[in-house]
C-alpha cells in the first residue's frame, strides 16, 4: 500500500476506528477497579459492573452467580463486538481480523485435541473454547490421528492451513507432540502475521510490528522457561522459537543454550527492552511473576497504540486490552469467591 494512509484510511475504515476508540473509552477505570476490589460477594461485583459499560449483561443469569458465568458473559460481549467489527470491515482490514482470530483458533484446536486424547466428549470441551476462535470444522478435529491427517482432513480450508507447512509429520498425536504442534503453529502464525503487517506498511506496520515482535520474544522466553526439566532437546527447542522478534537471531541461539532462569536472564540483559522487565521480576516469594511483567508490558504497548491514528493496530490493541480486563475481573471475582483476599490486588491495571 502507498504511504500516507491518512488520505484514504477513513473512507474504508474510519467508522470502525471511531467505534473501537469509543469502545476503548468504556474500559474499566482505576476507580472501577478500586470499587471492585472492595466487593464482598459476586453479587456486589455484578451490581458494580452494572454501573459500568457492561450494563446489565448478567441480568438474565439465574442465581447463584459463578465466576465462570461472568467470564462466559464477558466473552460473549467481546465476541459480539468483534463480530460487529469483522462484519463491517473491508479488505485488508478483514484479513487483519482473520489473522487476529487465528491465535484463538490454534488454541481451540489444541484444546480439542487434548480433550480427545483424554477421551472427553466434544461438547464438554466446546464450552471451554474461546468464542473468537470458533469455526465449523473445529469439532471434527478428533478424527485426525497425525498432524498431516489433521491438515488434510480438517484444517485444509481454514485460515490455519498455511501455518501447517512446518509441522507435517506422521507422528502420532500424544501430549508432547500436541504441545510441539501448538508452538510450531504459533511460530508460523506469528511470522505470517508479522509479514502481513510489514507488507501493509504505513502506521499499521509501525504499531503492529513492535507488538508482534514483543509477542514473538515473549513466546520464546516462555517456551524456554517451560522447557527446563523436560525431555525437549535444545535443537528442538530452537525450532519452536518464532523468528520475527528482536531476539532473532543471536538472542534465540543464546536462549536455546540456556539451562536455567539465570542464564535466561543473562540473555535478556543484552536487550534494552527486556532487561528492565527481568529486573522487575520478584524472586520466589512475593513480587511479580515473569508472566505478569510481560502482561504489563503488553498492556502498555497496547495503550500506546491508541496514540496514533489511521492504523489497524487499535483493533488488535482493543481486543487484547479487553482480554486483559476480563482476566482482571475474573481474577478479582475468583479472589472474592474463594475468600482469598490477600492477592486480590495483583491484577494488571490498564492505564
Amino acid at each position, binding site marked *: 500500500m502507498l504511504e500516507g494512509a491518512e488520505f484514504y484510511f477513513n473512507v474504508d475504515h474510519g467508522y470502525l476506528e471511531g467505534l473501537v476508540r469509543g469502545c476503548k473509552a468504556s474500559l474499566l477505570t482505576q476507580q472501577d477497579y478500586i470499587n471492585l476490589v472492595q466487593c464482598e460477594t459476586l453479587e456486589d461485583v455484578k*451490581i458494580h459492573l452494572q454501573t459500568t459499560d457492561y450494563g446489565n449483561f448478567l441480568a438474565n443469569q439465574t442465581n447463584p452467580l459463578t465466576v465462570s458465568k461472568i467470564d462466559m458473559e464477558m466473552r460473549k460481549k467481546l465476541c459480539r463486538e468483534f463480530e460487529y467489527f469483522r462484519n463491517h470491515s473491508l479488505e485488508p482490514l478483514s484479513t487483519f481480523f482473520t489473522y487476529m482470530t487465528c491465535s484463538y483458533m490454534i488454541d481451540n484446536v489444541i484444546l480439542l485435541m487434548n480433550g480427545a486424547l483424554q477421551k472427553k466428549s*466434544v461438547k464438554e470441551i466446546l464450552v471451554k473454547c474461546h468464542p473468537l476462535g470458533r469455526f*465449523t470444522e473445529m469439532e*471434527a478435529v478428533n*478424527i485426525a490421528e497425525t498432524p498431516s491427517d489433521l491438515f488434510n*482432513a480438517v484444517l*485444509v*480450508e481454514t485460515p490455519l492451513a498455511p501455518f501447517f507447512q512446518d509441522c507435517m509429520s506422521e507422528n502420532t498425536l500424544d501430549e508432547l507432540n500436541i504441545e510441539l504442534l501448538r508452538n510450531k503453529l504459533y511460530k508460523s502464525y506469528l511470522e505470517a502475521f508479522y509479514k502481513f503487517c510489514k507488507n501493509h506498511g504505513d502506521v499499521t506496520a509501525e504499531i503492529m510490528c513492535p507488538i508482534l515482535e514483543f509477542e514473538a520474544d515473549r513466546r520464546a522466553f516462555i517456551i524456554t522457561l517451560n522447557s527446563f526439566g523436560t525431555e525437549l532437546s535444545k535443537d528442538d527447542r530452537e525450532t519452536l522459537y518464532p523468528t520475527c522478534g528482536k531476539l532473532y537471531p543471536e538472542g534465540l541461539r543464546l536462549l536455546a543454550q540456556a539451562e536455567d532462569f539465570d542464564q535466561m536472564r543473562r540473555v535478556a540483559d543484552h536487550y534494552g527492552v527486556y532487561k528492565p522487565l527481568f529486573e522487575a521480576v520478584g524472586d520466589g516469594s512475593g513480587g511479580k511473576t515473569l508472566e505478569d511483567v510481560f502482561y504489563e508490558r503488553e498492556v502498555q504497548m497496547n495503550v500506546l497504540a491508541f496514540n496514533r491514528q489511521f492504523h489497524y493496530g487499535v483493533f488488535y490493541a482493543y481486543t487484547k486490552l479487553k482480554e486483559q480486563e476480563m482476566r482482571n475481573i475474573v481474577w478479582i471475582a475468583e479472589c472474592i469467591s474463594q475468600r482469598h483476599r490477600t492477592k486480590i490486588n495483583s491484577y494488571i491495571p490498564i492505564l
Partner: protein
Amino acid sequence: MGSLFRSETMCLAQLFLQSGTAYECLSALGEKGLVQFRDLNQNVSSFQRKFVGEVKRCEELERILAYLVQEINRADIPLPEGETSPPAPPLKQVLEMQEQLQKLEVELREVTKNKEKLRKNLLELIEYTHMLRVTKTFVKRNVEFEPTYEEFPPLENDSLLDYSCMQRLGAKLGFVSGLINQGKVEAFEKMLWRVCKGYTIVTYAELDEPLEDPETGEVIKWYVFLISFWGEQIGHKVKKICDCYHCHVYPYPNTAEERKEIQEGLNTRIQDLYTVLHKTEDYLRQVLCKAAESVYSHVIQVKKMKAIYHMLNMCSFDVTNKCLIAEVWCPEADLHELRRALEEGSRESGATIPSFMNTIPTKETPPTLIRTNKFTEGFQNIVDAYGVGSYREVNPALFTIITFPFLFAVMFGDFGHGFVMFLFALLLVLNENHPRLNQSQEIMRMFFNGRYILLLMGLFSVYTGLIYNDCFSKSVNLFGSGWSVSAMYSSSHTPAEQKKMGLWNDSIVRHNRVLQLDPSVPGVFQGPYPLGIDPIWNLATNRLTFLNSFKMKMSVILGIIHMTFGVILGIFNHLHFRKKFNIYLVSVPELLFMLCIFGYLIFMIVYKWLVYSAETSRVAPSILIEFINMFLFPASETNGLYSGQERVQRLLLAVTALSVPVLFLGKPLFLLWLHNGRSCFGVSRSGYTLVRKDSEEEVSLLGSQDIEEGNNQIEDGYREMMCEEFNFGEILMTQVIHSIEYCLGCISNTASYLRLWALSLAHAQLSDVLWTMLVRVGLRVDTTYGVLLLLPVIALFAVLTIFILLIMEGLSAFLHAIRLHWVEFQNKFYVGAGTKFVPFSFRLLSSKFSDDVA
C-alpha cells in the same frame, strides 16, 4: 403568580423519617413530586448502601416481569395499559407480590419448557418422516444395484470391483442418513470426501419445504442426505463428521417393510404429539392471559418501589439508627404540602411517632425551579437550552413570550405565510389531547412541543405581514392607496408650471419606461395609508430601496430597544441581590454608553422622519454622515439636523467617554475600598447570607445532636466567609473583560440586529421569485390551456411555498431569533449558571413497558 419572573424561593429541609414509615412517606412524596433529594452518601459506592438488598429484590422482580412481558408478547396477547397509575405497593404486599410472581415464573418456565420439548420432539419426528420419504427415492436406485453386490459380480464390472472385494472380506455396508443445513452441504461433502478418501457415497436431495430448526427455532432449508460406507472405521469418522456439522441423524431402515412400519409409527406419534401440544399451548395461553391482566400495574409498582429505595439510599441514618435523615430541596411555597405528605405517609403506616421536617440554613445555592404551564413551557425551554437560570435571577422567558415571536415575525413578515403557520399551530393546539400526537415521532414531536410558540409566531407574522403589506409577496389594497396617479395629469396648471413640477402629459407617458409620482404635487399624496406600507409600492420600481431604508432603520431601533431593556433587567438583578453599587458602577454607565451613542442614533432617525417632508426632502442631511461626523469633528461646518447639534453631540460624547473608565475601574476600586476600609454599609452581604441569618432561630429548635452539627456548619460557613479571598487582580481582570465585551458588543450587537432586515428582505424576495417564476408563467397562458396548466402550477407553488418559504425560511428565521435572544439580549443580564430543580416524582418514570422493560 409572578413565578415566571424569578425562580421560586427554595429552602433546604431535613426530613426525619422514622425507619418504619420512611417507605410510605417517600411513596407519598413521590406521588406529589415536591422535593429534590440530595445524595448524602456520595462517597459510598453503590453496592455498599443501606437498601441495596431491596433494590436487588426490585431488580429480581423486574427481571421476572420482563420475562413475563416477553412471553406475553410472543404469544400475541394484547397488554392492557391501565389508565391510572397504581401507587407504590405497601410493604406487606410486596412479599406477597414477589411470591406470586415467582410462582408464576416457575410455572411459566415449566410449561414453556414442556412446550419446547414437545415441539422439538414433534419437529424431529417430522424431519424423520421427511427423511424417510426422500430417501425412498435413493433406495429405489439402490435396489437396482442390489443384486450386483449381493452376489458375486461378474469380473468385467470394473467399477464395482472394490465393493465386491470388500464384500468378500466380510466388511459390512452401512448407511447414515439425516438432514443437514443447506449452507453446510458443500463443506460437509468435501470433508467427507477428504476424510474417507472417497470410500463413501453421498446422495442428497433438497427438501422442498423449509423446516424449523428444533434447537434455534429458525426456519431454514434443509437437505436430506444418505451416506453409504463400508467398514467400521470409516463409519466412526462419518458419524463424527455428522456431529461436527450438526446434522440431524436418524436411523436408516434397511428393508422396505421396516421403513413402512417406522413411517406408520411415526404418523401416529405425530398425531398424538399434536394433540398434546395443543393442550399445552391452550394452558399456557390461559396462564399468560391471566398474567397479562395485572402485569401493567405490577411493572409500574415495581418501578416506583425501586425509585423509592434509590432515594432512601441517599439518606443517612442517625446515631440511634431509629430514623433516616434525608436532606431535600423544597420550594418554600410547597412546605405545607410537604408536611401534609409526611403526615399522610406516617398515618398510612400507622406509626406512633410521626415523621417530621425542619428547614435548615444553608449557604449552598439552591436549584432553580420555575413553574411553567403548557403555554410557557416552550419559551422556558428556549431559555433553558442556553443555560438554566441562576437561583432567583430574572428569568428572560417571561419577556421571550412576546419578544421571540415578534422578532421572528419581523424576519418572517408575510400575511399569508403567517396565517398558514397560525392555522397549523391552531390545529395542533386544538387537538393537543389527541393520543397520536403525544406519541408521535421525533420531528413531529418537536413541532408539537413548540405549538404555542408556533401559534404566536404565526399571529405576529400576520401582524408584521400587514405592516409590510405582503401576502404571498403581493400587496393587499384594503383601504385604498393614499397616492393618486390622476393628480399627476392635472391640467389646471400652465405648461410651464407643469414642466417645472414634473407633471405628466401624453408624450411623457408614451416615451418613458418609468414614471415618477411626485408627492409634492398637490393631490398626488393624500396622506399615509392607515395600516402599514401603501400598496402602491408594490408597483414601484424603487420599492426595494424604499423598503430597505425602512427595514434597516426599523431593525436598528428594535435592536437598541431590546438591548437597553436587557440592561435595565440587569438593574432588577442587582436590586434583588442587594448589590446596589453594581447599579451605579455598572448598569448606569452601561446605559449611558448605550443611550448616548445608539439612543442618539434612534433620536436622529425619528427626528428626521418627523421634521422633513416631501417638500424639504432635498435638503435633508444623511443620518449616516451626521453620525460619523459626531465622532470625527470635521473642520467644515455642515448643515446639521437642528441648531446646536454640535454642542449636544459633544456633550453626549463626553458622557460616553466618561462612562467608560467608570465601567472599567468603578467596581474593582469600590470593592477594594470596601475591603480595606471594612466599612459597615452591609452592602457587600449577599442575599444568601441574609437567608442564613433569618433561619438561625430555627436551628435552635433542632435536637441537641443536630444543634451541634448545625453550629459546626454555621461556624464553618463563617470561616469560609472570612477566608473568601479578596483578589483585587482577579476582580479587575473580570471587570475589564466584561467591560470590553460590553463596549465592543454594543456596536457589534447593533450591527447584528440588522439580520432582522436581511432576513425579512430575503424572505420577501424569495416569495417574490417564487411568484414570478411559477404563478405568473401559469397566468400568462390563454384561457383554454391555462386551466390545465394552472392546476399543476398552483400545486407546485403550494408545495414549494410550504417547504421552502414556510419550513426552510421559518427555521432560519427561528434560529436567528433564538440567536438574537441568547446572544444579544441575554448577555446583558442573564448569567444562567443554575441547576434545574428535578423533583423526586413518579410522574417522571416512564409509564410504558416497551421502553426499558423487555
